[in-house]
């Protein structure tokens, strides 16, 4: 990364949510969306990610992109827990509609520094109404 993060102004903490709506490898939105989440970590904001519609495929285990000649950037999702991302929301209806369950998703974890660095799951599967409420409470939304 050639990125140089500038420090956030003191006191300004906003709720950022990155909403991922597309399957992972049919275009660059997903990969470049993940890059925003990783860079955003340097700014000490309250960051969460949401996966809706075909976006839920981004978190599928066992992705193999070799035959398509693509880099499997989804391996980097495992790093999100180290990048100040505390919550990844996956919309239950989107999962069910695609025949997926929680067992199909990567077992992403983070260490909770407020709980003696206990390892906790990063992914929470929630219904669309609950997710809509969460989206309503954000300050900044970016769709990828």
């Amino acid at each position, binding site marked *: 990364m050639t990125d*140089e993060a500038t420090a956030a*102004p003191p006191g300004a903490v906003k709720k*950022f949510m990155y909403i991922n709506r597309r399957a992972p490898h049919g275009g660059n939105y997903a990969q*470049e969306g993940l890059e925003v989440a990783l*860079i955003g970590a340097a700014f000490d904001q309250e960051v969460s990610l949401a996966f809706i519609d075909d976006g839920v495929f981004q978190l599928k285990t066992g992705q193999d992109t070799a035959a398509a000649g693509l880099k499997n950037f989804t391996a980097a999702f495992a790093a999100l827990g180290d990048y100040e991302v505390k919550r990844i929301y996956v919309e239950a209806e989107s999962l069910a509609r695609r025949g997926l369950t929680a067992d199909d998703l990567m077992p992403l974890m983070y260490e909770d520094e407020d709980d003696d660095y206990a390892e906790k799951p990063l992914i929470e599967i929630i219904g669309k109404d609950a997710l809509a409420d969460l989206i309503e409470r954000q300050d900044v*939304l*970016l769709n990828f």
Partner: protein
Amino acid sequence: MKFAIVVNEGPYTHQASDSAYHFARAALEGGHAIYRVFFYHDGVHNGTRLASPPQDERDVVNRWSKLAAEHDIDLVVCVAAAQRRGIVDAAEKKRHAKDADNIAPGFRISGLGQLIEAGIRADRLMAFGD
């Protein structure tokens, strides 16, 4: 109100850059401020000065350059997205040993941090694209 704008699509194929431009003009005319316009994904293609659209058509790139000059607006092209797609300024030309640069007047290449910072500093972040 202080707006930040993000443009996620390239010119002409998609309406996003046109809509963002008209939004910016209307906001300025309404007495609002534009903190920054950030170009991401294929949106970086809005920043090439080598575009030459037919003379009886709108010039999407030039329009942004003129708006930036008239209102001192910060037009930022994401460096990582630009490197993938061949949008190059003098520094990037040197760094990657390219034989040319193509950044349009009023645009600059910088990091994704500029997008996050714009989200923090502006009252509203307006995103244009799919």
